[in-house]
């Protein structure tokens, strides 16, 4: 994905130019949130399940070094080749080397937010390797030359008519046909051909079990399986935080993941990959890319518990009304806003401010990440590190000066209200963002404290 220069507020402003579309986007995602609620309520011990998942992840993060080595050893015993990548560049280099060694020119990839984070696709294309994303939503945004706008529902920002047009242009479906079933069937035919031709398959990883060295990949389309089973090389790319200690812990996470994500009891496919088949090479790339740095930040460590369900996006009233692309990062929404500043404070300094701190994200999170509290804490860090505008800092200092001195505050308040009454144009103008679509509160002649002084004996 290209780095964008516009900040969240600017991109959100643009998104809001088409209000009916914002309504549609909001209602579509709210529908997913409501499905998630219904599904959660079918499990009486839901909150206990969240607590348990959070604790297992805490243990995994606290002992990450040991679990990773255990996983590596088990995976190697299973016949996999394990690679370690310190950052996105090393990850991309490792994947490219494997593919070049096998002379791969064309390959398939199932959904992997990690490869989005590492910008793998453009890197491979620059090296003459064609990548076909096989998750239907990802394939759609790939054809549209756009990044995913949601980690679970990559093309949720696209209407079926727009997908019909894309398919007409790229896959030769009849113009004007936007029937979802027809379009899905067309994608199926198109992808089947790609699966059969692909020399290699990349998959993401939802859970990596330290105890057994196996990986679990969850999809609704079976595309990870199709890719991995047909290709002679399978490369599984995972962030180091995907580790869970034992296989039995899947019983907790698989119950939470799909219910939180899409309101399904479980994903259609929860595929376990343990050994390469006869004649196949299985590579596992373990990627850090800032994760150990985040692990070292006490206030933000828990963000690594994330299982990428996207529930925080679906519930976020800001995400629903600004769209995933407004976050200009591979992972959008509240979780993206606490992960991104760890990658680059300067580029993503706007994201922790793209929230009202309503707290709904923390409540839906299946691993109980204190997302909204981390947003608050990131704001403090970003200001202290100097990533806010000098105008804002100056404004805040003036405000602090007024609010720190009762006499100044009282005089300023009285004067302000007088100005608002005498010269309403001073505040009711284009320069005031509040006034653009809202009336200012009517300034009363008397403040409460002035009323109190006149009517009550002061204490």
């Amino acid at each position: 994905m290209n780095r964008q220069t516009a900040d969240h507020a600017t991109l959100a402003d643009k998104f809001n130019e088409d209000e009916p579309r914002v309504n549609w986007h909001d209602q579509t995602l709210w529908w997913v949130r409501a499905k998630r609620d219904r599904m959660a309520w079918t499990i009486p011990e839901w909150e206990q399940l969240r607590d348990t998942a959070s604790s297992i992840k805490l243990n995994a993060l606290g002992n990450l070094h040991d679990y990773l080595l255990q996983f590596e050893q088990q995976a190697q015993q299973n016949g996999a080749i394990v690679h370690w990548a310190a950052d996105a560049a090393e990850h991309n280099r490792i994947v490219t080397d494997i593919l070049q060694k096998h002379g791969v020119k064309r390959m398939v990839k199932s959904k992997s937010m990690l490869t989005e984070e590492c910008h793998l696709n453009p890197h491979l294309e620059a090296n003459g390797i064609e990548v076909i994303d096989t998750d239907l939503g990802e394939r759609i945004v790939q054809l549209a030359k756009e990044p995913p706008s949601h980690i679970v529902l990559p093309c949720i920002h696209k209407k079926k008519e727009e997908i019909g047009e894309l398919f007409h242009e790229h896959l030769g479906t009849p113009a004007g046909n936007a029937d979802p079933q027809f379009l899905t069937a067309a994608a199926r035919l198109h992808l089947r051909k790609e699966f059969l031709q692909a020399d290699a398959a990349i998959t993401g990883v939802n859970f990596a079990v330290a105890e057994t060295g196996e990986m679990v990949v969850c999809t609704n389309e079976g595309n990870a399986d199709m890719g991995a089973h047909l290709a002679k090389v399978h490369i599984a790319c995972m962030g180091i935080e995907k580790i869970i200690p034992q296989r039995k812990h899947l019983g907790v996470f698989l119950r939470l993941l799909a219910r939180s994500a899409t309101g399904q009891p479980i994903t259609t496919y929860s595929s376990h990959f343990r050994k390469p088949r006869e004649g196949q090479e299985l590579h596992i790339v373990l990627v850090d890319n800032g994760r150990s740095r985040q692990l070292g930040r006490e206030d933000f460590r828990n963000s690594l518990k994330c299982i990428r369900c996207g529930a925080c996006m679906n519930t976020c009233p800001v995400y629903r009304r600004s769209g995933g692309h407004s976050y200009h990062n591979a992972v959008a929404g509240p979780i993206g806003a606490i992960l991104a500043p760890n990658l680059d404070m300067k580029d993503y300094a706007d994201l922790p401010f793209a929230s009202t701190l309503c707290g709904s994200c923390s409540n839906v999170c299946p691993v109980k990440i204190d997302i909204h509290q981390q947003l608050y804490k990131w704001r403090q860090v970003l200001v202290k590190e100097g990533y806010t505008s000098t105008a804002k800092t100056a404004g805040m200092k003036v405000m602090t000066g007024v609010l720190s001195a009762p006499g100044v505050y009282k005089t300023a308040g009285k004067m302000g209200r007088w100005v608002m009454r005498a010269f309403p144009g001073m505040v009711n103008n284009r320069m005031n963002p509040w006034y653009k679509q809202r009336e200012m509160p009517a300034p009363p002649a008397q403040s409460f404290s002035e009323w109190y002084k006149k009517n009550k004996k002061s204490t």
Partner: protein
Amino acid sequence: MKVGLFIPCYIDQFYPQVGIATLQLLQKLGCEVGFPQGQTCCGQPMANSGYEHLTHQCNSLFIKNFADYDYIVGPSGSCVLHIKDHLHDPAAEPKAEKIRQRIYELTEFLTDVLKVTSLPARFPCKVGLHQSCHGQRGLGLAQMSELVAAPFSKPEQLLRMVEGVELVPLDRADECCGFGGTFCVAEEAVSVKMGKDRVADHVKHGAEVITGTDVSCLMHMEGILRRQHAGVKVMHIAEILNQYTDEQANS
């Protein structure tokens, strides 16, 4: 019981009627209420913008004003939550701690400390209750729609004691209105859109008055309603709970 009345700065300046209703209601319920004149702001506008390090003077001021009260009560869940979570002063930490433990948002003070079971109030009106996030999710004034847990609502419990109040149902019982402090101007487009959607939910269900525990949310929604000439009013919950019955009005 000595109650210190905490009237947040923007209520003091723009919504004095909310301060008056809160004061009268607490007195009506038998509290001895003091209003420290030196109070200004809890410091939340700076802290939520990332400038918590600038709030130490606001903190010292708050401690100076409120340290001597048995309880501190304010008609704003958001400001109360800020104090509860962030009031610190290295020079007076025991006092800060006492305040953090003794500060209450108005409705929780009524239900949990005063244990109010009836109110002498009448307000024949269709009312939509806006559950402000910081009160609801932060202070736990009401159960949250995200959690699998038994429902309760302290503000609703009180509104149901008021004769004539008809609470309207909402499609989204606890979605944020989009005020969000400086968010309301920094992210103007999304803030307004969230506010418009929230207001529309109340209007659709026939609310004549939108009430809530936070004036900031109400101020934001009022600004939108007035721009739309919607004819729906906003009132802080204290103003409704403090309504007189016909008997009181005639006496």
